[in-house]
């Protein structure tokens, strides 16, 4: 099973709340315990970032994502493809993985606002 975690940088590995506009994915394989960093295609999209990001998650073969907010377009795609969506507050990637394995993470039950990852939403 593979999980895709949205992160801001490979160095500090903090989970990024913005699904489509995070810079990287941490792709974690639960069985092999291997972690791979991949550039998020949504980050570089002018339009349709959520679509590009969700599409990439499908192509990477992920079964679940861990992030903060998912916009309406991405949410629709992930739900249609039966990919589970989990919410993580600000935390490190390792902690997110640990909590996922323990089954403590809450599921994202609906789409958040669109364009959440743009502008100064900090």
């Amino acid at each position, binding site marked *: 099973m593979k999980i895709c975690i949205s992160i801001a940088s490979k160095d500090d590995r903090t989970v990024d709340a913005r699904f489509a506009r995070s810079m990287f994915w941490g792709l974690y394989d639960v069985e092999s315990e291997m972690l791979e960093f991949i550039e998020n295609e949504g980050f570089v*999209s002018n*339009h*349709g*970032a959520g*679509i*590009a990001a*969700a*599409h990439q998650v*499908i192509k990477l073969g992920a079964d679940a994502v861990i992030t903060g907010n998912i916009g309406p*377009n991405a949410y*629709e*795609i992930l739900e*249609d*493809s*039966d990919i589970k969506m989990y919410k993580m507050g600000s935390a490190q990637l390792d902690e997110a993985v640990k909590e996922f394995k323990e089954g403590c993470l809450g599921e994202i039950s609906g789409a958040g606002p669109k364009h959440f990852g743009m502008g100064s939403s900090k």
Partner: protein
Amino acid sequence: MRYLVPAQSTLEWEVVSKMIEKKRIAVLSGKGGSGKTTIATNLARVTGMPYVDLDVEEPNGFLFVKPDIEDTMDVTAFYPIIDKDKCTMCGKCADMCNFNAMVLGKKKVLVYDKLCHGCGVCTLVCESDAILEGQRSIGSAMRGIDERGIDAFQGVLNVGEAMAGPIISHIKNKMIGDSYVVDCAPGCSCNVVKALIDIDFAVLVGEDTQFGLHDLILAMDLCGKMGIPYGVVINKAADLSSSLVYQYCEKESIEVLGVLPFSREVAKSYSKGNLIVKDLAYREVFEDIAFKIVGEQ
């Protein structure tokens, strides 16, 4: 020889008999709110040329021109319709789409119409003939006539749509002749570029502020890149000795077509939906602008 019939008085609204021949004029500014519609509607009025509102996301010129609408045409845009019986879920269409408008989900291809730019690449790469060419309504194009019987046009993009291009192209290619005043959208991106295609002369409205000047320079850059000659109208102007836009134009040897000083009276007249060439003594200013444009060839 072209000339304009001088106004007898500001209360008599004569039709200006000689239109500037074969002159496609566009009014743009860079910065929003700088006075494009004011300049465009009043310039059209004074010259008797048709007014064309190509700020299709927020057209407002008709508030001043007040035409009786005679024709309204639905404008449609292409979008792909997937035939699920023929679709093999190969995903080629989604991979080739440059605009993220298609995604291969687990069960079907998902299409995001509003991102579709109508390039048609998906239909070319599909090997199962599973993509049909749909057309969906994105807005409308209208033609009306004003109280003098002169045409006016506007495009209206439906709320929520992202793609204004097809409406702008429809109006330019199918509805207007080759003599008009186009009121562009604010900014310098796609909507403005599309409106500027085949324009003979651009009137750049420079709001006399730092932001106004900054964006005016971007607009000049755009016209330069598109090879369109231009002149500047300084709007809401300070005294020329302290006018940022005037001093910039002097320094760069850019032609100033006219100056409209900052005026509360103009703002009041405008807020009532009046054309300032009818309501106030601004006819001459606009006639001078028109003369200067005609001289530019």
